[in-house]
């Protein structure tokens, strides 16, 4: 098992040992727009709540028809997997995730918690002022909770650590552009997931070492290059399946993938404003891409930049947000003659069905993948 997959698997143990080592608090976060830097500056370890499917005999009491990422996270809380957390926070975003947050709170009222409002209309000139104000409220609440004042120096340090982390992730990610990349899609996805549950300063050291290691690696053979988009995932099962069929996911546009680290905080004197601008300006997911449709264009640019041959759109069942966005995405892909495979999944991947569909999709894609099957096809 690769080291990052192991880190993801062992995330609960990691957080608990971090807590024991540092005496700090661990804060679970639900929504991808959570400004982790602020919590980190207060000496807290922010960890993303990742779905993990286990037989679910609890969440049904609280939820009906919610998507599985939300349901599985709630189930994990109800089963006590997150008992070591000190608090939880969510940001205005997807309503199913909010449901998981809300129901957890109802069943476990002892958790410290906060709901942070981040406008869905991210582009208005007033949006940043609203978010800045909400960040200020959150900062004060964190200070009261931890009994520690968050200074400008704390914020600068946190922003620096996070920016460095994003830079390292991007450096590694960019290596996937190579025709014969040194890192496969599954490993990259595990790495990004691990990053979201680790102390960033510690992760940065791991990433620096990993970058050096990559320089020594033998590149993987050129093969069909895929892009993965759709709802978030918390594993790399799909990437692994593609690899087993002779393809490689070279780029993604997932909330749990590249969108997590794509843009940096541009430091300015008003630290909270700098944070606000970073989160309002990140590659948007469907709930925030309501006004100026940036998402389809961003998908297209990534597709081109990473020379993908086809797109997999994996939507979580009951994901109403991607259910509304897909029309625009499909339209763009069709207009540009980009082959795509759409299917629905939940937090587990239906093995045989997915393999079959992927196989037949790859058969279609292979014909257009000139870099694999040759520039001059033999006439039949």
């Amino acid at each position, binding site marked *: 098992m690769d080291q990052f997959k192991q880190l993801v698997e062992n995330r609960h143990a990691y957080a608990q040992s971090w807590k024991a080592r540092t005496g700090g608090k661990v804060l679970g976060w639900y929504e991808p727009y959570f400004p982790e830097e602020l919590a980190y500056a207060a000496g807290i370890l922010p960890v993303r709540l990742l779905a993990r499917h286990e037989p679910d005999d609890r969440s049904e009491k609280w939820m009906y028809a919610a998507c599985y990422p939300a349901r599985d996270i709630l189930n994990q809380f109800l089963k006590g997997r997150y008992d070591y957390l000190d608090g939880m926070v969510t940001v205005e975003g*997807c309503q199913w995730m909010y449901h998981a947050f809300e*129901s957890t709170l109802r069943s476990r009222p002892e958790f410290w918690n906060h709901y942070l*409002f981040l406008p869905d*209309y991210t582009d208005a*000139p007033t949006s940043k002022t609203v978010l800045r104000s909400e960040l200020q409220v959150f900062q004060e609440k964190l200070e009261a909770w931890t009994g520690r004042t968050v200074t400008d120096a704390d914020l600068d340090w946190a922003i620096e650590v996070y920016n460095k982390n994003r830079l390292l992730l991007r450096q590694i990610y960019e290596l996937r552009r190579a025709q014969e990349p040194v890192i496969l899609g599954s490993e990259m996805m595990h790495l990004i997931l691990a990053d979201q549950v680790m102390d960033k300063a510690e992760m940065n050291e791991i990433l620096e070492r990993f970058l050096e290691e990559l320089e020594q690696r033998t590149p993987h053979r050129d093969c069909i290059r895929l892009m993965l988009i759709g709802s978030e995932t918390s594993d790399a099962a799909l990437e692994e399946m593609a690899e087993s069929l002779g393809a490689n996911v070279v780029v993604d546009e997932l909330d749990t993938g590249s969108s997590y680290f794509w843009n940096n905080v541009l430091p300015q004197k008003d630290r909270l404003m700098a944070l606000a601008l970073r989160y309002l300006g990140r590659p948007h997911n469907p*709930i925030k891409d309501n006004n100026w449709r940036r998402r389809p264009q961003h998908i297209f640019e990534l597709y081109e930049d990473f020379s993908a041959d086809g797109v997999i759109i994996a939507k979580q069942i009951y994901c109403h947000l991607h259910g509304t966005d*897909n029309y625009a995405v499909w339209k763009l892909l069709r207009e540009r003659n980009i082959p795509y495979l759409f299917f629905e999944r939940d937090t587990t991947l239906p093995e045989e069905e997915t393999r079959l569909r992927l196989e037949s999709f790859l058969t279609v894609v292979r014909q257009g993948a000139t870099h694999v099957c040759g520039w001059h096809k033999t006439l039949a």
Partner: protein
Amino acid sequence: MSQGQRWKTRPLEFWAKAKELRADWQKSIEKQDKVVGQGNTGFADWSAAFPAITVIEDNPAGAMISHKNPPFARKSRLACEIRGWGREICGYHNNCWGGQFLGCQDDGTPFPYRRFVVPFPCVCDSHGKRGQQCRDFEAMPQWMADQCIYFGPRDARRDEPMLEHKTWCQLKVVNDIERIFGQPLDEEEYIRQLDTVSVVRAYAQEISVLMAQTIPTPLSVKDLYSVYTIGGLTKVNPDDTIAFWKLVRDEVKWRADNQIAAVGNERFRWIEAHPPSWHMLKYYRYLEKFGAVCLGSQYSHMMSGGLQRREDGTISGNWELEPKGTAPYPADTPLATREDIVRYSFGPDARYPYTFKIDEYLYPDKIVEFAGMMQADGALLGLWRCGVGCTMTRKEQAMRLRDAGYQVLLYEGSQPGDRTDLDEKQFFDRLDGWMESLGLERLED
């Protein structure tokens, strides 16, 4: 009196007037030569102040299609699904937007293609994203806004930037519409619309309180639903709107004073949550045969701004009480500029409107308070597979109600505008079982 009848009852007299107003409205939209936009009509009071534009809304259209024309609803949803829109988004939307591809509405008339999109701020994601369904179809001007939310009592410090944001968004809409469509906003008319809303809200509050406090209730929610769009979704001129709601209030009050019941055999009062299954409303009348009358949901009493109990135990509209809600600005607030009007329309609490949804999502235990105010005995709650906003927290509401001693029955379906998953036979069997378990026999056929 029929079997089991305990109170006098008689048909509603305001119903004739309601039919007349509705017919006038229908005629007015049929000869519509205005620029049509997609928007939330209930919160687009400003639109009436533009003489040559009109805002129509997909939600009521989608609900109506599901009720009137199920085959078309199915066809329309399919037209959406094959193009990427998910099965799990609000059923109203796919019922309506399939018409964009099919080119027609359920009655065969040409689809009223939208030419602009105005904001749909809402805590429900499906609600918030529904401008996109025409904007993605065809390029057109679109404006956005936010439903600002925070937990806990009102916080003026947080409200301030949120209100600035909302004001900016709203001013951008009206100023841009003036520029793009070349027609001036009639500010006097805008103020008049806002004043109308305040007057109607006061009547609506009285009606809700009368329903809650009176046994037998003078009005069932089925009766309320048959008129509650008048003045809002069913646009009527301000004077007629006020006159109509006064007529309704007067009649409901008279019925309450004289113990004229909506259902003559009322013996079990029940509530529900969010909208009903518009595609199958017969369950109201069905349960009335058992003497079970529906008092509505937090949603159906939204016109009154929601209800809340005063300390002395009496009931009032939300806006009267602190700290839960904050009363709107006084009616005599000076309105010197367009910006003043916009600010006035929002009031001082940045979380306004949609109190009923905030109650359902942020405070699921509020349904227990609602059941208490309605003097309910039980609740019938729909669990919907699609349209996140319609199902959010429903399970929890059921739990809270059960814990508080209410008789709760759950049923499953797709969404209030989508009949795909609702097993009607099983649903009615469940209703029979529910009534039987409560010892309520069917009183008449």
